[in-house]
């Protein structure tokens, strides 16, 4: 959620991507599956070349040698008499053999096309031409048959291809082809008719599945104090805990050893907790965090939920095969069934599939193509992908079914940002841009605004300038306004529920933060700029208004808490070496943490109020990751929210009263605890001292009758000696020392 709004220049972005409390996932090249595949092909290549050398029969190796040596002692290339060729043809020519002609009776290569126009002999030739044009795309048609009746074709035809593969291809791609309004082709394999004919007419009633009562999966929202939950992974990943967040101390709900093998993820509405295992993903939920579903996907590394929590997308670099795509699998969460598998070459830009806000569509970008799929069928929308030559990036609006994408400049055609409505595919706005180096798309969380960060090299100037092109989505024809930035941009982020955005810009150590406001008339106003900031990341409160500017990692964990309503810095603080900042879903608290994944000492998470008052320091051995449990969107209407805000004074009195009570209770408890500790300790000391007094005589005896119990017990025996010292005194306040 934060990621969508909060993207920075490449270096910072990379840092942040890693920083987002994710365990190190091996880079694609190192992914075990990839490696294994590479090795296999390598070893094959090696086998051939070794063979070539050993055998000395193949010219490729021998020839250069002959040239080098002239004809002085040309080696013999003949095989020895008893040589037996033990290289199989498969090994030598595997790639060629694959395509050798196969014996087949031909039936496999036949397709049946239905819904073909019925024509008389006069137009048959024309029809044949059209059919040929459409179907020869998939392979060479060796035979066709147009059955006739009463001088007209029957409306279905048979086509035979040179190979069954072509026939399969034709079925895959031409089924559903719209010839014209009346005629949509249905294409089937001829052999399938056989198959479907043999299906029994009897229908077996499926066995009724018992209803599994999972209890109230949203029980945590009913908690009386409105507290939030969070998950914590510690002991370098061996233990995972779930806590209630509490101002005093976190309250443990559940703690398990080896709950996950790498890390955990909450579903977008907080219903499920996903754990990662070598063999797949498990989802947990309900009051006792019972297992709700399992998805078996060997070697799973990355997952993504659809925003509606209906589907789960999993990625594994293992096990993908040509015929059975399963690098990416989309699952139905409720049934646990696999909905569809996809091939995937690289998981570098996870998520590969981006979901529309309502989970109705998901889309993926490949070379020059944008493929949009529908749920629940998981098929391509309108059965075809969009050809967008040069497409670089795309992003769904979080507020409606609109896709934004951009293509870079191509010779004389300018770079282009397009907004497209779905499923109509209507382009609602296109903006041309010139001299573009790079674009980044940043949606405001409600989809009210889109900011396209455009890095340009304008003609006649040196270096890169950055423009923010602000699209106002809620207005007619989507007007665009531009903010030009002269300095390097470190980070950009929209206020989640509002019309402000924050920008970090400049070069370290001269980094500034600017807050802008997009007014209703489109004017974009700079509200405030603070210079000399120690920050590289922006974290808006999920409710807006408040923002934490953090200098993570290399910037030592500097923190600034800013109220953007009047642009005051509420507090400046530091969590040394902090690697992560996480707002709670309500915007009341914020957690900073030092993860063991990025730093090996002082692993801890600290809890702050939104104003930057430190509440807790929680040190956990080899702490790795803290994730707040998300909340579903509020059920209150805008009016109700407004009413609550209006009556805030009334409520705040009640809450203040409650806080005072709990605070005095807390300090009472603390004092009480100290009192009992002191009493126990006094009791112990009394006992020890009694024993000590009993031993007084023994002590005197051991030290020849000299009493040494107190410093001045034998003051009478002291000899006075006067020594003079020169003492120079310098008082240094300890607080300022480093």
């Amino acid at each position, binding site marked *: 959620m934060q990621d969508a709004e909060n993207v920075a220049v490449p270096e910072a972005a990379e840092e942040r991507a890693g920083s987002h409390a994710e365990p190190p996932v091996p880079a694609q090249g190192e992914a075990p599956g990839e490696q294994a595949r590479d090795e296999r092909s390598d070893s094959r290549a090696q086998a051939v070349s070794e063979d070539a050398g050993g055998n000395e029969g193949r010219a490729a190796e021998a020839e250069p040698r002959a040239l080098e040596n002239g004809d002085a002692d040309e080696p013999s290339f003949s095989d020895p008499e008893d040589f037996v060729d033990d290289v199989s043809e498969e090994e030598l020519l595997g790639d060629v053999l694959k395509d050798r002609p196969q014996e087949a009776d031909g039936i496999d290569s036949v397709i049946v096309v239905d819904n073909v126009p019925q024509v008389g002999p006069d137009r048959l030739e024309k029809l044949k031409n059209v059919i040929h044009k459409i179907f020869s795309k998939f392979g060479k048609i060796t035979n066709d048959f147009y059955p006739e009746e009463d001088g007209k074709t029957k409306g279905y035809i048979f086509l035979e291809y040179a190979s069954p593969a072509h026939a399969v291809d034709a079925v895959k791609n031409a089924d559903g082809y719209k010839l014209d309004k009346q005629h949509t082709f249905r294409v089937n394999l001829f052999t399938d008719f056989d198959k479907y004919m043999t299906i029994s007419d009897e229908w077996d009633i499926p066995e009724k599945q018992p209803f599994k009562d999972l209890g109230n999966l949203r029980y945590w929202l009913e908690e009386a104090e409105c507290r939030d939950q969070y998950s914590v992974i510690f002991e370098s990943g061996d233990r995972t805990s779930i806590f209630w967040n509490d101002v005093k101390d976190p309250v443990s709900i559940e703690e398990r050893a080896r709950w996950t093998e790498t890390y955990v993820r909450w579903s977008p509405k907080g219903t499920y907790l996903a754990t990662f295992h070598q063999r797949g993903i498990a989802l947990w939920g309900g009051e006792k965090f019972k297992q709700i579903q399992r998805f078996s996907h060997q070697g799973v590394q990355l997952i993504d939920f659809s925003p509606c929590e209906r589907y789960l997308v999993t990625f594994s670099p293992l096990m993908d095969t040509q015929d059975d795509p399963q690098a990416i699998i989309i699952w139905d969460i409720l049934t646990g069934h696999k909905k569809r598998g996809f091939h995937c070459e690289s998981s570098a830009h996870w998520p590969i599939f981006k979901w529309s806000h309502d989970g109705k569509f998901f889309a993926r970008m490949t070379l020059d193509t944008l493929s949009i799929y529908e749920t629940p069928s998981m098929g391509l929308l309108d059965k075809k992908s969009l050809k967008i030559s040069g497409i670089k990036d795309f992003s769904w609006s979080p507020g409606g079914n609109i896709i934004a994408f951009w293509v870079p400049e191509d010779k004389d055609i300018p770079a282009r940002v397009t907004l497209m409505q779905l499923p109509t595919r209507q382009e609602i706005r296109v903006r041309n841009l010139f001299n573009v180096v790079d674009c980044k798309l940043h949606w405001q969380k409600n989809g009210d605004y889109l900011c396209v960060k455009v890095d340009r090299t304008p003609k006649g100037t040196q270096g890169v300038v950055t423009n923010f092109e602000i699209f106002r989505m809620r207005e007619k024809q989507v007007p665009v306004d531009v903010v030009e930035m002269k300095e390097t941009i470190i980070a950009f982020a929209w206020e989640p529920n509002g019309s402000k955005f924050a920008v970090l810009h400049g070069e370290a150590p001269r980094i500034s933060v600017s807050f802008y406001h997009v007014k209703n008339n489109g004017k974009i106003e700079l509200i405030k700029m603070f210079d000399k900031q120690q920050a590289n990341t922006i974290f808006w409160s999920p409710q807006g208004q408040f923002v934490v500017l953090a200098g993570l990692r290399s910037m030592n964990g500097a923190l600034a808490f800013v109220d953007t309503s009047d642009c005051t810095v509420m507090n400046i603080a530091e969590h040394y070496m902090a690697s992560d900042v996480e707002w709670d879903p309500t915007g009341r608290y914020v957690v900073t943490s030092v993860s063991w994944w990025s730093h090996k000492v002082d692993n801890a998470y600290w809890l702050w109020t939104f104003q930057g008052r430190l509440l807790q320091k929680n040190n956990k051995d080899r702490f790795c990751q803290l994730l707040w449990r998300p909340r579903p969107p509020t059920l209150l209407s805008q009016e109700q929210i407004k009413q609550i805000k209006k009556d805030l004074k009334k409520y705040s009195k009640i809450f203040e009263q409650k806080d005072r009570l709990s605070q005095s209770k807390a300090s009472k408890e603390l004092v009480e605890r100290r009192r009992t500790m002191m009493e126990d300790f006094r009791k112990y000391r009394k006992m020890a001292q009694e*024993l000590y007094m009993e*031993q007084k005589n023994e002590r005197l005896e051991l*030290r020849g009758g000299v009493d040494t119990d107190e410093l001045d017990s034998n003051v009478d025996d002291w000899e006075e000696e006067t020594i003079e010292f*020169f003492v120079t005194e310098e008082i240094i306040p300890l607080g300022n*020392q480093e």
Partner: protein
Amino acid sequence: MIVNVWYSVNGERLGTYMGHTGAVWCVDADWDTKHVLTGSADNSCRLWDCETGKQLALLKTNSAVRTCGFDFGGNIIMFSTDKQMGYQCFVSFFDLRDPSQIDNNEPYMKIPCNDSKITSAVWGPLGECIIAGHESGELNQYSAKSGEVLVNVKEHSRQINDIQLSRDMTMFVTASKDNTAKLFDSTTLEHQKTFRTERPVNSAALSPNYDHVVLGGGQEAMDVTTTSTRIGKFEARFFHLAFEEEFGRVKGHFGPINSVAFHPDGKSYSSGGEDGYVRIHYFDPQYFEFEFEA
């Protein structure tokens, strides 16, 4: 390699004990400061005249001397040697009243310690036993007469770096690599309190007149690549004995603190660090006024 005596008032040096040819791991003086005992990595333990600095005895050992001490009466000395160079860890006892023991380098008792070497040791009250902390984190009470183990406890999970007794010797505090210091009863070795930090604790000392304990330590230099003083946390930290709560910190060293000690009057304390400095700090008036709400 040289043991020095300093004035704590101004840091002026009063005198030296010259002779050791290796790092000196331990020093002790007897109760009436007649003698000084030192143990060193040069495989010797030496007895000195406190006032003149003259070496009175040289006891050769097979391996480095890690700990040494005079008993309550100042008549018996003990020292322990490292498990090193194929030699085992031993605790040796000499009675100074019998000069032949020193002359022939024949201790009246030698306790072998097979399992885990001794990393710190002190005499128990009245000189009846010694209390030894081990590399494994175990604590043993050995009888000074028979050498048998009287009590064994394991409260620490890692090496015990230091043991210091309270002034009345009824309790002692241990400092361990497991990032904690703990308070024990000297007679029963019963665990009383735990003081937690985030760094290995090298030394801990009990205030003679307040319920306070000071801890010194910090990240070991070899454990981190860039040891800034902030990551290292080379601070002396003050805890309340009964509440186990920290109430003060003193920065200053730029390497781990190896040892801390209170002045016998409790008005100042000193710390020695890996950075090569010994710092003497006098407490400000607030220190004496401070009280926990209880």
